[in-house]
């Protein structure tokens, strides 16, 4: 079935504008993700440069980050990427209830990841006395990069919540669902960025 035959509004009218601009919207959104990727890349390369220019890592007086909790929290976020993918797939195949459940599961897992990050920050600041402002390059780069990523996850959770409300209101149809595609792309992007951050902060 073509996009043109499906791209109808809530009252069945043909949305010509949507048909003509869908590809442009996709390209614009991908350009946004590329620009975000450049932003993260600049911070990541700055971190790697600083890390390799010093005498050993982490700096004296700071313990290495324990990987056990981070691995668990990472899997929570990666799991949300899988549920978001299946939310989109179910929407494409007209399985409304499965779509909503997978979307809600994604929101819960995303919020769970944020909770885990808050727990880790709390532990680092109060138990290990590693702070953004008082632990040199290590603290500054860790909190800046993971904080920036956490902010992206937070906005992603907000966006997905808006998707739930819009979907409940019948904004999206089987042929007109770019908002859901964009949400899925964004969420996958956030996951992929965490793969890099998890590797450089906890595994290297």
């Amino acid at each position, binding site marked *: 079935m073509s996009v043109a035959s499906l791209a109808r509004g809530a009252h069945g009218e043909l949305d010509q504008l949507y048909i003509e601009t869908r*590809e442009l919207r*996709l*390209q614009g959104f*991908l350009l946004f993700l590329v620009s975000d990727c450049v932003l993260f890349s600049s911070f990541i390369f700055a971190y790697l440069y600083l890390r390799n220019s010093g005498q050993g890592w982490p700096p004296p007086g700071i313990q*290495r*980050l*324990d*990987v*056990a*909790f*981070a*691995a*668990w929290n*990472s*899997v*929570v976020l*990666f*799991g949300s*990427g*899988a549920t978001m*993918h*299946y939310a989109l*797939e179910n929407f494409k195949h007209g399985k409304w209830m499965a779509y909503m459940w997978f979307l809600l599961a994604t929101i819960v897992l995303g919020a769970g990841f944020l909770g885990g990050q808050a727990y880790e920050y709390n532990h680092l600041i109060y138990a290990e006395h590693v702070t953004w402002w008082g632990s040199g390059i290590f603290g500054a780069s860790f909190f800046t990069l993971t904080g920036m990523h956490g902010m992206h996850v937070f906005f992603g959770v907000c966006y997905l919540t808006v998707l739930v409300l819009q979907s409940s209101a019948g904004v999206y149809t089987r042929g007109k669902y770019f908002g859901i*595609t964009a949400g*899925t*792309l964004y969420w*996958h*992007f956030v*996951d*992929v960025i*965490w*793969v890099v951050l*998890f*590797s450089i902060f*906890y*595994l290297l």
Partner: protein
Amino acid sequence: MNAATIERLGAVIAGIVVAVVAFYALYKDWRAEGTENQVFKLMLLLLGLGAVLALLAGLNVVGFAPPKGA
């Protein structure tokens, strides 16, 4: 069983599930065409690799593990 062991066990089990799901979704979408599907495939591949990394970290194969007794 201490908290770190439970976290590692959770990471291993959930890592296997997520990796299998991601690679299966990639396998199913392998022949899909169009810009967005190509991006989805790339991201599913990286997602699966991330899950494998977390799984290996849970198994103590990669990453830092505190010395015994620390």
